[in-house]
């Protein structure tokens, strides 16, 4: 499948070196946003141009790539990025979290815990956690430099004053290595605890904003909160309708116009794995499949 018209993994070697230098700097200063000369990619901004550049820079011929979008391996974005690297780098791809060495993700961290030989690459739309409170880039950079993060708590204060609890449900700000406040990209806050002390390397790429940042393996990541309003990961109070998982992050799917809905794991690989292992939820089709199988055999 290796198309000779492209350099390995689409980007030329000089560009990849430039991105790798940014990545090394980002790893050296956990949570710090390193500017880099983001390139135009053959996809629109907002579709993961930052993540794709980071992936292209770290991918080797032996790597096994998994791409997820909102936890799913089979949405348009995930499929097209997977195909993109299959075509331009000829690397093996997979949907199984354990088998992957590089996982590019949009908005989720896989349910299966990551191990030390993996790299998780996040696609980031807006890397600056202080952006909506302080519009000036010069000022936000200064605030990071001087570790002036009172403003971040102003946002959480506003949430509690307005809704009675911290209503920020995604892109929940974290403090990395007790120094930099970081936007974990729009992952649900359910995933925040997974970033803490994670054995895998976590890289964040923002293509439009031209920033790369990183969380090295086994780094402390703390979600910001108040003493009397501690951080709480949010999850719908229901088991997955397909695999009956009680501890996974769920998507709500509206099934009719009469209020009918089902909750299913957003991580498709995790859900399929559980179903294959014999876990069945209330709306699983597996029992019917088995019956149909028996009928056709009999």
């Amino acid at each position, binding site marked *: 499948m290796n198309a000779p018209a492209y350099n390995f993994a689409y980007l030329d070697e000089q560009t990849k070196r430039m991105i790798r230098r940014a990545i090394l700097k980002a790893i050296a200063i956990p949570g710090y946003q390193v500017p880099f000369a983001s390139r135009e990619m053959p996809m629109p901004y907002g579709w993961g141009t930052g993540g794709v550049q980071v992936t292209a820079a770290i991918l080797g011929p032996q790597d096994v790539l998994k791409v997820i979008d909102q936890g799913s391996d089979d949405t348009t974005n995930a499929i097209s990025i997977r195909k993109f690297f299959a075509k331009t780098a000829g690397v093996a791809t997979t949907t199984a979290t354990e088998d992957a060495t590089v996982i590019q993700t949009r908005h989720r961290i896989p349910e299966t815990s990551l191990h030390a030989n993996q790299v998780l690459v996040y696609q980031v739309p807006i890397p600056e956690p202080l952006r909506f409170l302080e519009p000036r880039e010069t000022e936000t950079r200064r605030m990071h430099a001087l570790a002036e993060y*009172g403003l971040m*708590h102003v946002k959480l204060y506003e949430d509690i*004053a307005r809704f009675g609890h911290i209503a920020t449900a995604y892109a929940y700000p974290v403090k990395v290595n007790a120094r930099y406040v970081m936007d974990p990209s729009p992952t649900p806050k359910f995933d925040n605890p997974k970033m803490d002390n994670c054995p895998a390397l976590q890289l964040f790429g923002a293509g439009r904003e031209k920033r790369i940042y990183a969380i090295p393996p086994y780094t402390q990541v703390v979600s910001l909160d108040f003493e009397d309003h501690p951080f709480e990961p949010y999850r719908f109070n229901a088991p997955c309708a397909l695999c009956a998982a009680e501890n996974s992050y769920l998507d709500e799917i509206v099934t009719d116009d009469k209020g009918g809905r089902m909750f299913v794991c957003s991580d498709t690989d995790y859900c399929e794995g559980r179903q294959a292992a014999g876990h069945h939820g209330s709306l699983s089709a597996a029992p019917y499949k088995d019956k149909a199988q028996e009928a056709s055999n009999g």
Partner: protein
Amino acid sequence: MADQDMLENDEPLLVAESLSKSYGRIAACRDVSFSLYPGEVLAIVGESGSGKSTLLQLLSGQLAASGGQVSYRMRDGVARDLATLGEAERRFLFRTDWGFVHQDPAQGLRMAVSAGANVGERLMAVGWNHYGRIRDTASDWLTRVEIDIARIDDAPRTYSGGMRQRLQIARNLVTEPRLVFMDEPTGGLDVSVQARLLDLVRSLVAELHLAVIIVTHDLAVARLLSHRVMVMKGGRVIETGLTDQVLDDPREPYTQLLVSSILPP
């Protein structure tokens, strides 16, 4: 008289020594020297373009002076030259030991964020991490500046001009600063609101033993609030003294003109 002795024996809080600032050939501020003592209110008066605002920015470390220096006695009692402070220290000073009340509240407030968070921001910036306590302190301060507690969750956008200015004062005083800079705090407010604001400022200043440097072109404000007055013209201080003395018995022709320009009540 006892107060006077105390002031004389005390160390000055802020000392300006021959401060100058020029923009190219234009000298906005020339050779200004004075000392400010704790609890003292100093008014800087003069017409537009006389260098008042430039001086205020020099004193508060927002502008680098072309000549001279400003030293400030920190909470530990050591006087430090502002120019030698690092940016982090200066910013820390600015949000703890100092306050700055702008003429336009939109500059000093976060207009889209609730009043409670506006007041609480400085507390959170110095590490307060308990929502209940921050909110209690914020509502306490709103009461002190006569803002209805029921408005605590409203954004200052929805406030009237006078309320915004009072909120700005609360936001600045919440960390109990020792020195507050005020740049025309009553500008653009109608007379009755001005009077109420001045009354409030005067009682807070006395209660908290604040030192204030207030820039104004309104001599009535200077008369009401300040202990001492500095009159500026063309970047120079032309006359300085006790407020009553300067305003009732002006020595310089320009001050005489300024005082006589007030409409008789």
